[in-house]
């Protein structure tokens, strides 16, 4: 178990104001846990912020034209391996789709999934 | 994909659940190709095939019928070989009576690992049927 997880669980278990099955309204339990924990880990916040930024940059870039990984890397100034990771995640979530492969059968272009 | 344009003969295979089915399945597993117009109907034992079914298959348009017989491996006993042979003989006579070329019915023992032999049988039977019939 990671330390963060342990920490969260210890906190959750130790100062449960409402107890299990208490009066927390179904569908609004996230707020309950956030209050109980007194916030969320900084790392999770940072990660989300970074991803949102990159997602925005990538989708903006693809608005102009379809791009390969290399072209995207140059355009948004990011290492190609990072581009693969984020771009493929965006493909998975349906924001981006895979286009054609080049003549050499080497690199695919990626485009917005409208 | 050059094969696509080539016509193949329609062959109905009677195979058996315990013995020849596994061989035909294994042919697929090993990607041993044979014409896709080969269709299989499984029966418990090859000696339970009625001649009327075979005649019906020709009547409906099958070019050939192949019995993938159990041979001596049959789980229902060794009399299977003789009985299957007998019903093939009977069917051949019926075919002659009805003006159907008896060579359109073939039989071979296909044991549970005879994948290659099954595929070879299908290919040669297909070639024979293509040559002798206007498929």
């Amino acid at each position, binding site marked *: 178990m990671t330390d963060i997880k342990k920490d969260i669980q210890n906190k959750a278990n130790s100062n449960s104001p409402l107890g299990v099955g208490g009066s927390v309204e179904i569908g609004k339990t996230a707020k309950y846990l956030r209050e109980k924990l007194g916030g969320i880990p900084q790392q999770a916040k940072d990660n989300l912020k970074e991803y949102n930024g990159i997602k925005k940059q990538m989708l903006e870039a693809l608005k102009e034209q379809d791009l390969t990984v290399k072209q995207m890397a140059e355009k948004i100034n990011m290492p190609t391996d990072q581009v693969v990771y984020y771009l493929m995640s965006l493909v998975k979530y349906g924001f981006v789709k895979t286009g054609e492969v080049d003549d050499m059968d080497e690199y695919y272009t990626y485009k917005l999934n409208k | 994909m050059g094969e696509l344009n080539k016509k193949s003969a*329609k062959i109905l295979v009677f195979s058996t659940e315990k013995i020849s089915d596994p061989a035909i399945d294994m042919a697929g*597993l090993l990607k041993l190709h044979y014409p896709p117009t080969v269709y299989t109907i499984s029966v418990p034992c090859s*000696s339970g095939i*009625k001649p009327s079914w075979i005649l019906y298959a020709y009547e*409906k348009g099958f070019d050939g019928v192949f019995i993938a017989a159990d041979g001596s*491996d049959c789980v229902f006993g060794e009399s299977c070989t003789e009985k299957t042979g007998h019903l093939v003989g009977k069917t051949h006579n019926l075919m002659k009576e009805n003006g159907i070329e008896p060579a359109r019915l073939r039989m071979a023992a296909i044991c549970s690992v005879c994948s290659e032999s099954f595929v070879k049988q299908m290919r040669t039977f297909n070639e024979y049927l293509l040559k002798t019939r206007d498929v």
Partner: protein
Amino acid sequence: MEKKPKKIGVYICHCGGNISDYVDVEKVRQSVEGEDIVFIAKTTMFACSDANQRDMVEDIKANGLDGVIVASCSPKLHQLTFRNVSIRADLNKYTYVHANIREQASWAHSDNKIGATEKAIHLVQAAVAKARYAEALETNKIKAKKAVAVIGAGVAGMKAAISLAEKDTEVILIEKEPFVGGRVAQWDSLSTTTESGKDMVKRLYNELTKHDNITILTNCEVIENKGSVGNITLKVSKTPRFIKASACHPDDLKRAIEVCPVVVPDDFNFRLSNRKAIYKNYPSEYPQIPVIDIKNCTRCGECEKVCKAIDFSEKEEIVEMTVGSVLMATGFDSYTPEYGEFGYATSENVITLPQFKRLIDTQFDKLVYNGKEIKNIAYIYCVGSRQTDGENTYCSRNCCTSTIHAAVTAKNKFADINNYHFNRGLRTYGKQEILYADSLRGGDIYLQSYEDGLPTVTTEGKKTIVKINDILTNGREIEVEADLVVLVTGMVPRSDNSMIGSLFKIPKGRDKFFNEVHMKLRPVETVIDGITIAGACQGPKNITESVNSALSAATKSYSILSKGELETDPLVAIIDAEKCTWCGSCEAACPFDAILKVENGKKVIAEINNSVCKGCGMCAPVCEPDAVNLIACSSAEIMSMIDALV
């Protein structure tokens, strides 16, 4: 009476691409969607997944379906899975119909996507045609005898017997040889343990005899097999020992062996030595009574003079028994090299690995063969295994480790031994690697070749030379003058496998060992219900692996019988009483005596005994008035399938 039309659900599996890469599954779905009885037609990524199974149950319940069809892989793999889905949705399992569009369409025709799709469409349509006729059927229940016959009393068979006896199951352990222990009894030294093979056999034998529910039959062979899972009747022929156990006095028996004038090659020692016609392979062997090898006995009567226990009047006995399941643990043979293969039988300095192992076990101080002290030993690996121009294309798995163990044992036991290993890539997998590393450290020399540059053995006068182009030293030709050449012979299927195999109708694989149903799903079961396989009769194995498979087979045999009751298929023959005129041909055709002649009102007709009928259908084609049909395989069903397939 007008029947309500059926409502069927059809599920077409992608199999994660195995099907959908070659077959257009959507097209297949559309092709049956419009059929009157098809209420739902869906495609699914994995039909067998829990999620899809749950979906099917919901679909059946929510829509009141009468049956389902799954078009996926071979019914051998998942027919049972989907029949169980039907059961969970409160449908009778016989309303389920399976279509095989993987092994018989996408895979078989992966070279032709259009053809594969076309075929899949016809196959699914044929399944729909069959589903029109599929009816709810009740299974027959039969009593299962909680007893298992274990065939072969090597370590696998002995372990299986013990483990079944511990599970309150009656065991009959049948061994063809006069003694138990199989191959392991032949070894003194085993790798990874200080226990000798003989001691291990002794330990297992003592454990066997602790259980009252185990019967050990030595010198016995199964000669007849009747019936089926739950109720199998075996006939066993028992060759007499010609020695009365009760009257046996050890000293007299010892004398009897001494006086026996017959001398024959001793197979237990791989013909390295001789034995008498009355013999034991080694002093502590089990059971502890000698045996008379009647084929070689001259009936001179010398033994009778010194020992009262000798009794030549003993006759062959036939024992009959009923068991619920049979566990095959018949073991393997060692490969016998061809005449002249690496100098076998043509050079006096060439022996096989099993012979070499016996040689080390039977000698002390000095290693002597043919009167000559041995110093330099050349081992030639993969003899009879991984053949490129022979039938045995498989690797025999255990021989690398076994050879290194023997070589290290020889080196530790005798002075000045030099080991040269002419191998084709060492396969000391897993923890056995340590043994290889140890032997390298101990100074053993390893020389390697590929399949196309095997070592050669030549005899020049008294010298035997082994030559190789060693790839480990850049292909250099290296030659070793060997005092002894050991041919590392692997495991091959037993020569008598075909006899016992065909008696129980067990299929064999391409390697001619007994074949399991599925290497991963059902590794110890055969296509014959109730017959399990264990140990090296299924393929080469070391002792641990044999025991693992023996215990697995015991688990399987036990779980078949543990409830004391089995369900059998209700797919039997039925007689149309109107058409039947009793001519007796069906009775003559039935191999199971399942057809009876009965009076039905004014008429004499045939009747099927459902609990005996095995559903083979042999009675159907012989019926002139066409009064016999098989349930689920009737003329109407077959013809409607033919209509769909054309």
